[in-house]
């Protein structure tokens, strides 16, 4: 499809869109919108704000780790006498920040951005659907998520502050914790409900609303990633909901699902019936939370696959192997959860089972990552801003994945358990891994959402700053972790002799974290500036093959496509021999000359 034609259709689309806009009130168009694109943008902006907030909590904690017991400059006074008398953070407050950093980053930041944001905005466009299958349900998912977020934020202001038992909320600590934990549980019930509604919507949309001709093996890899992710959310979240209900009963109705008999707290016996099992919580929690790790990483792989195919101008290497791998990965992710629990004394037989499944699940991850690496071979790459982020994802996720292997084997996990090594490992997967991919996605699909490109100069500054600082934050964690520094220490290990050698890294990591914060300013400025002032681009500025770029105007009107698209070919027909132009959009009908080629 030539550009002139697509620009022509863009104008028609705008006129069409204006016609619709007049019918909708401000509230229906911008607040309670039913349009998947706007809901996607709502998700994106909300989750980015939460990511910034969750990151700010960590920047505060890093002060305490680098300079234990010293008053926090400037903002120390704003934290309140209850949390930080004289600007010095109290241990109780440190625990709140730790628990809420994890909760906010995972459940309010990365998942809503990767699934709610990108899934909503891109999936219907890529499969040629006018909207999600259930637009009202879609709107409800967003608002339920929003309420969950508000409940989490409100919990900071209740007596005793927010939840402080870690993002994993292990019982029985969480059962006897302050009131904030109850808010955490209620907030989680909202977030889980939102994810459930969303995942049903995604699966139905992908199965039912694919354009004619868009067979399963012609789906862009991003859509496959979203489909598998939605199944994980659908089936893994309910057990956590069950666990949340049980813990809520323990806290509110005085039951003892997770409270063992004869428990003593502060030299006083706890007044409960007992007979519960703290281990039960861990099983229910990790039954969700391990698939959850894949919920965090799979959409990121999907984004990276799109960006790499587009910027290498080559088909993805091993597309089918990637698809089968991601499906297998989805299945396997349900049978690895107890590798988080080697330390609990489940017994060697159970441990052996889970370490075996854990080694097996690393195979499909390696296949996907290798396929993405091999896709680069022989390419004449375009180093656009999204491509830089996508390229950086590969080694970063590689480090995250490989450092996970020693944690998946019971015997090597024992010395590493609960140390900074674990923190380093999963942050490499989620921060330099997933977050870089999500940034790639934002730079990549921004022109589709706004019709304008983000600034390349600011984007590249943002990329290099972020890339270097992230490694500055997380690489030293492996060193500290191998030296045996525990992950939950309020003073970063200052009072332990075995940590003395590696303590110097704390200041380095903290300064890297704050520098990382500063580099995000480039992104924030770029994001808002480009909405109004960014360079105007055509409907398909990246010369991409998928329907989101090739068949829809930028920004797409309500209903997305002016003519319902039909699909005739696979998702990544770049540099097809014998074809003029270096790409063939999925919706381009085969001509006679093609048949010969």
């Amino acid at each position, binding site marked *: 499809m030539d550009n002139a034609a697509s620009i022509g259709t863009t104008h028609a689309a705008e006129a069409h869109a204006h016609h619709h806009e007049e019918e909708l009130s401000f509230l229906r168009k911008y607040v309670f919108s039913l349009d998947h694109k706007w809901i996607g943008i709502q998700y994106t902006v909300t989750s980015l704000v939460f990511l910034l907030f969750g990151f700010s909590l960590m920047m505060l904690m890093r002060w305490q780790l680098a300079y234990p017991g010293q008053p926090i400059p400037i903002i120390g006074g704003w934290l309140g006498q209850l949390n930080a008398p004289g600007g010095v953070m109290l241990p109780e407050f440190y625990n709140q920040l730790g628990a809420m950093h994890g909760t906010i980053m995972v459940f309010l930041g990365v998942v809503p951005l990767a699934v709610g944001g990108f899934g909503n905005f891109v999936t219907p466009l890529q499969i040629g659907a006018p909207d999600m299958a*259930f637009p009202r349900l879609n709107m409800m998912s967003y608002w339920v998520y929003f309420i969950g977020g508000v409940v989490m934020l409100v919990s900071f202001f209740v007596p005793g502050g927010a939840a402080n038992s870690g993002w994993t909320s292990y019982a029985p600590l969480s059962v006897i914790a302050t009131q904030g934990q109850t808010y955490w549980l209620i907030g989680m019930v909202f977030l889980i409900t939102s994810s459930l509604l969303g995942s*049903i919507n995604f699966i*139905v949309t992908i199965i039912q609303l694919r354009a004619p001709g868009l067979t399963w093996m012609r789906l862009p890899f991003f859509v496959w990633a979203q489909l598998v992710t939605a199944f994980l959310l659908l089936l893994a979240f*309910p057990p956590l909901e069950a666990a949340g209900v049980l813990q809520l009963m323990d806290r509110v*109705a005085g*039951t003892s*699902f997770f409270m063992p008999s004869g428990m003593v707290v502060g030299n006083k016996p706890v007044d409960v019936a007992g007979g519960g*099992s703290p281990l039960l919580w861990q099983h229910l929690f990790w039954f969700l939370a391990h698939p959850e790790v894949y919920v965090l990483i799979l959409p990121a792989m999907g984004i990276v696959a799109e960006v790499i195919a587009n910027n290498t101008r080559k088909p993805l290497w091993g597309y089918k192997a990637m698809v089968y791998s991601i499906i297998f990965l989805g299945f396997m992710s349900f049978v690895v959860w107890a590798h988080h629990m080697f330390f609990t004394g489940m017994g060697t037989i159970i441990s052996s089972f889970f370490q075996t499944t854990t080694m097996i699940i690393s195979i499909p991850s390696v296949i996907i990552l290798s396929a993405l690496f091999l896709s680069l071979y022989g390419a004449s790459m375009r180093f656009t801003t999204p491509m830089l982020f996508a390229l950086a994802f590969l080694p970063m996720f590689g480090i995250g994945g490989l450092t996970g292997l020693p944690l998946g084997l019971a015997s090597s996990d024992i010395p590493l358990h609960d140390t900074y090594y674990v923190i380093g490992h999963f942050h490499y997967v989620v921060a330099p891994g997933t977050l870089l991919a999500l940034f790639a996605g934002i730079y990549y699909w921004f022109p589709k959402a706004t019709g304008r490109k983000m600034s390349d100069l600011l984007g590249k500054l943002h990329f290099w700053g972020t890339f270097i600082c992230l490694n500055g934050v997380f690489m030293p964690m492996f060193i500290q972790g191998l030296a045996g520094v525990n992950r939950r220490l309020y003073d970063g290990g200052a009072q332990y002799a075995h940590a003395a050698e590696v303590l110097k890294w704390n200041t380095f990591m903290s300064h890297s974290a704050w520098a990382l914060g500063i580099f995000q300013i480039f992104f924030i400025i770029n994001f808002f500036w480009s909405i109004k002032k960014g360079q105007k681009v055509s409907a398909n500025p990246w010369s991409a093959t998928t329907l989101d770029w090739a068949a829809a105007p930028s920004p797409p009107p309500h209903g997305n496509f002016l003519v319902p698209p039909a699909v005739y070919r696979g998702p990544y027909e770049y540099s097809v021999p014998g074809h003029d132009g270096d790409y063939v959009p999925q919706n381009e009908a085969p001509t006679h000359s093609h048949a010969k080629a």
Partner: protein
Amino acid sequence: MLIPYTVEARPDTGLPNPKLGIWLFLASEVMLFGALFSSYILLRVSAPQWPRGSEELSVPLATLNTVVLISSSVTMVMAWAQLKMHNLARGRLYLWATMALALTFMVVKFFEYEHHFALGEYPSESTFLSIYYTLTGLHGLHVLGGIIVIAYLAGPGAAMWRSEGERYTNRVEVTGLYWHFVDLVWIFLFPVLYLL
């Protein structure tokens, strides 16, 4: 804007969107109750002693409730069958009957709870009572949700019959699938809590 396959089935999947949606929802519900049943098993096998359900709880009332709930599933199917035969009045009548039976179930459940509370048998008393209240309470919430939806379909929601009869019939069918699931959960709860 029209979403495809809202009413008619997509040829290659053989399903309209809402039907696939409700099956997926039920899959997640299976996981929810599955997790709770697993918790029940884990707590029971690790407990030094566990009371016999039939000695703690009222089997006759639960049997009555089982009959009531199974009957309500039958009336739900009848409602859908009547709508398929283009008989709205009969269909609505069966929907109201389903709702009446569901309300009966809740009333019986209320008296059961009240009886236990009067004896001082609160959830905090023992693990058995904890899991009893949690499972039946959550199931009760599901019944309540069903009552609200069925009341809507039998009442104001029936206005859709005139404009989009097939869509209305589908809504009743999909609600029916949910309702049978709620019924099925009870059929598991009854022996597990009251008999074993």
